[in-house]
C-alpha cells in the first residue's frame, strides 16, 4: 500500500494511472485545476477501490500557489511516499513559434513550474531519506524536431533536470523516475494527425505503475518500443536530421 500524490491529476495519462492505483487499494492525493473534475474523479476512484482520495484544486503553472499546495500535501497525506508529476501542455507549434507569450507559457507550464514544485518535494523527501519522485516528460525531449521543438525543448529540459535530481537524491535513497511516453491517445494529442494510431493510455498507465513499484528503471520509455526508436533517432547525424521534416 502506498501514499501517492498526483500533480496534474486530471490529465489524460494521470486518470488512467489513478485507476490502476485505486484498484490496488492505495491512498491518493490529487491536485488539479477543476474542482468539478476532481470531485468526479474522487467518486470514481473510491468506488474502484482506493483506500482514500483527497483532492486540492490549484493551478500548478502558477508558482505562487506551490507553498499552499505543498502544505496541504504534508498535512493531509503525511508520510506520502510517491509523487507523480503528470501535467503538461502542448500548444500548436506554429503558435508557439510566432508568439513569445505562448512560448513562455509553454516553458512555464512544462519546465519552470515543474522544477519549482519538484524542488519543494525533493527537499522534503531528501530529509526523510525515502520515497520516489516520478515525472512525465516525453520522447519529444530526446531530439529537437522542426514540428514540435518548443514542447520538446521544455520536456527535454525537464528530463535533464530529473537526471541531475536523481544523482543528487541517490545518496538519500530517494528514487527519481523519468517517464518518457511516445504519442498517447489523450485530449492533448487529439489535434495531431494519425492520433488514432497512438498508444492506448491504459497500457501506458500499467507501464508507469509497474515502474513505480520496482527498483528500476530510472528512465521509462512507454510503450517500450520507443526506447529503441529513440536510440535510433538520436544516432542520426545533425547534418541529415536538420533536413528531415517530421
Amino acid at each position: 500500500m502506498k501514499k501517492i500524490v498526483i500533480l496534474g491529476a486530471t490529465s489524460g495519462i494521470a486518470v488512467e494511472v489513478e485507476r490502476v492505483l485505486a484498484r490496488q487499494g492505495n491512498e491518493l492525493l490529487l491536485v488539479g485545476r477543476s474542482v468539478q473534475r476532481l470531485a468526479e474523479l474522487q467518486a470514481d476512484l473510491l468506488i474502484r477501490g482506493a483506500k482514500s482520495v483527497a483532492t486540492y484544486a490549484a493551478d500548478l503553472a502558477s508558482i505562487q500557489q506551490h507553498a499552499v499546495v505543498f502544505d496541504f500535501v504534508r498535512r493531509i497525506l503525511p508520510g506520502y511516499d510517491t509523487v507523480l508529476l503528470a501535467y503538461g501542455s502542448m500548444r500548436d507549434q506554429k503558435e508557439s513559434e510566432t508568439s513569445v507569450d505562448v512560448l513562455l507559457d509553454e516553458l512555464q507550464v512544462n519546465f519552470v513550474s515543474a522544477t519549482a514544485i519538484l524542488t519543494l518535494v525533493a527537499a522534503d523527501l531528501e530529509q526523510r531519506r525515502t520515497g520516489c519522485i516520478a515525472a512525465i516528460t516525453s520522447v519529444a525531449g530526446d531530439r529537437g524536431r522542426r514540428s514540435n521543438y518548443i514542447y520538446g525543448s521544455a520536456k527535454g529540459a525537464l528530463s535533464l533536470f530529473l537526471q541531475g535530481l536523481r544523482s543528487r537524491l541517490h545518496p538519500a535513497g530517494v528514487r527519481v523516475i523519468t517517464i518518457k511516453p511516445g504519442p498517447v491517445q489523450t485530449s492533448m494529442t487529439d489535434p495531431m494527425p494519425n492520433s488514432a494510431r497512438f498508444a492506448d493510455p491504459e497500457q501506458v498507465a500499467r507501464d508507469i505503475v509497474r515502474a513505480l513499484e520496482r527498483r528500476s528503471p530510472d528512465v521509462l520509455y512507454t510503450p517500450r518500443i520507443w526506447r529503441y526508436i529513440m536510440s535510433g533517432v538520436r544516432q542520426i547525424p545533425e547534418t541529415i536530421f536538420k533536413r528531415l521534416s517530421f
Partner: protein
Amino acid sequence: MPGQSATALRKQTAALPPTTQILSWGRYPKTAHAKVHRPAWNDQVPEILQTAAPDSLLPYGLGRSYGDSCLNAGRELIDCKRLNRILGFDELSGMLRCEGGVSLSDIIDVFLPKGWFLPVTPGTRFVTVGGAIANDVHGKNHHCAGTFGSHVRQIALHRSSDGLVACSSNENADMLRATIGGLGLTGVIAWADIQLKRVAGPWIDADLVPFQSLSSFLDLSRESDGRFEYTVAWLDCFSGKNLRGIFFRGNHAANSGKEFHSKRGPKMPFALPAWMLNRYSVKAFNNTYYRLHARKTGATVLPYDSFFYPLDSIRQWNLLYGKRGFLQYQCVIPETNLAAVVELLDRIARSGMGSFLGVLKQFGSAPSAGMLSFPRPGLTIALDFAMRGERTLQLMQSLDEIVKQSGGALYPAKDARMSPALFEASFPRWRSFVPYIDPKMSSSFWRRVTGAH
C-alpha cells in the same frame, strides 16, 4: 450496387475534407466522418453541442451496433469512451450512477466481486451504458426482466438548447422514454442511474438441451420460462425445415466458493480472407458445433463470461468475415405467425449464405421502456451474413418481405439496409418520437430510413 459503390465510396472519401474512418461492428458500410470529438469530461460536452451545425452530431460509444445506427457519414461523431467515470453506488440498494461512456464490462469488473450484476446484458460486454440505453438492448432474461431501459431510473441528458436535463419517471418522463431506444438522437447521456441486481457469485447453473424442430423449441422455451432466468437457443441455419439447435438455459448459481479466474482470449489479428468462409466450411462448423454440444447436454456449472459472452472470448471476431464485413439480420416475428419463421429459416438454408451465428429467443410480454424499443412479444431470430455484394442484399430483401407480411419488425441496432417502408412497418409510431430529437443530432441510419436531412 455494392460493387460499384465501393469505388464510388472511395471517390467520395477522397473528396471530403480531412476525415476519420470509424466503422460499426459489421464493418459495413465503410463510412468516413468529417470530425470526431473526444470529450474527456462532461463539462466539455455543452460547448461541442452549442458550436455544432444543425443535424451534424451523433454520440458514439464502443461501436458495437452492427450497421449504420452508430454512424454519421460525412458529419461528426462525439466519441463518449472517455466519459467513463462511476459517480456513485449505494451498497444497500444496488443503485449505480455512472457516466454514459462506462462499459458494461467495467461495471462487471467493479461490482461482480461485490455481489452485484447487470440487470440485463446483451451478448457482448463491450458496449457502453449510453449505447445500451440508446438501443434499449435485451438479453437472455428478457422474459423475466424486460429490456435494459426498464432498469434505468434516471438520466441526465446534454441537450443543445436546454443544457443538462434530468429525466426520470417523475420529471421529463417522455424525454426518458424517447432516449431509451432513441438511437442517440435525443442528446448525449451525461450519466444514468441503473438498478443492479444481487447475485451470489460469478457462476451460472446452466443446462443444455438439443432440439430438432420449431415446436420442440417452443415447448422447451415455454417450459423453461418459469424455471430459468436466462434462455436462448443457438440455431443451425443450414438445417432449414429440419430445424435443429441447442437450447441454453440457466440461473445464477449459489456461491460455490470455487475460485474464479477470468480469461483473456485470443484476438483476431487481421481480416480473414473472404474465401475461407463458404457454405462448406460454415456447414462443417455448424455440424461440429451441434455435435459437440449435443454430446455434453445436461446440467453444468459455467463461469458467467462463457455463458453470457462466448463471442467476447475472441476479440475482434468481426474480422472473421473479411474485409468487406458482414450484416446481421435480427427480426422479431409474432407467435401467431410461426409459418413465417419456418419460411424465413427455409429461405436462408436454401440460399446457402447463412453463417454460424444463428440465435433464436422467445421474447417476454413485458412492454419495452422506450418509444422506439425493438423487443415485443414474439420470436426473435438473429443471423449473420458475410457481405458478398448484391446477392447478400437481395437475400435480405426477400427476408424483409416475410417479416413485413408476418407483422414483425427489424432491429435498428443490427441494420445497415432496411427500407423506409419496413422501418415504418416496424415502428409505426416513429413520427411521435421526432419532436424529441435534438436539433443538432442526426445519424446515417435515421436519414436512410426516414428521409430526414
